[in-house]
């Protein structure tokens, strides 16, 4: 299956994070154009692919993970805001036949992404 998928995990708890809003954009010229906003399910994934293989085109894409509001809701009074802010991952599809799994592992003070499988 080609296209783009993600998976959000809380590395503090070792659990998926549900209800995270993800803004998916594509670069057009010099500007980022919002394609759609999706949210993670109970498994920390989106119900469908973020981008279907049939819709994949060579180019630059962006995922903005609105995680700070989730950490804020879970924080106790006096906790500082999440250091990692709302992380953004910008990456290219360079071959439409390949699949691009872009997971994000996070805690309030730490963020990791990679090309997964």
């Amino acid at each position, binding site marked *: 299956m080609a296209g783009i998928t993600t998976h959000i995990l809380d590395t503090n708890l070792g659990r998926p994070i549900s209800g995270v809003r993800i803004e998916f954009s594509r670069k057009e010229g010099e500007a980022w154009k919002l394609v759609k906003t999706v949210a993670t399910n109970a498994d920390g994934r989106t119900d469908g692919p973020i981008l279907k293989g049939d819709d994949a085109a*060579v*180019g*630059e894409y962006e995922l903005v993970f609105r995680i*700070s509001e989730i950490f804020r809701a879970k924080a106790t009074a006096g906790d*500082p*805001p*999440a*250091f*990692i*802010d*709302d*992380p*953004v991952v*910008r*990456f*290219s599809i*360079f*071959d439409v036949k390949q699949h691009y799994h872009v997971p994000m592992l996070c805690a309030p*003070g*730490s*963020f*990791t*992404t*990679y*090309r997964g499988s």
Partner: protein
Amino acid sequence: MTEKMKIDRRSLLLAGAATLPTMAFAQTGNQPSALTVAPASQSGLGPRLTMHAIDTFHGTPGAGMKCDLEVFESGAYRRISSFETAATGRTQEPLLVDDALKAGRYQLLMHFEAYFAKYGVKLPSPNFYSIVPIRFVIQDVTQRYHLPVLFSPWGYSYYRGS
């Protein structure tokens, strides 16, 4: 790097090349230099923002990484400075220090694609990562903030260090 260390490193690479698949070394031409000193503790220093680029592909400091520091103001990121990391993967001076350290939302744009191209790493075109935004929050200007970034052509991590 001392002459002895250069020789030791070359011997190790040659020994490795003889026993490991050639793939392990064939992808890259001129390697970034290995770290030769222990990291210095920043404990006890005043409020500042520092960073450290660590190349987990070569196992070296991320030397010569072009970076742009920006702060979020009135709905957009405003450029504060542009610089290149030193041989240690750090910068000579803090990115922000004392009064210049202000609370806010920041991004460090790191030029991954140009970095790996410089060291001769073969990458797809367009590359998976080009200019990577590292976003973070500075909340308490009385504290010291350290931003390590561990990176390879296919993944990266950042965290609040010390």
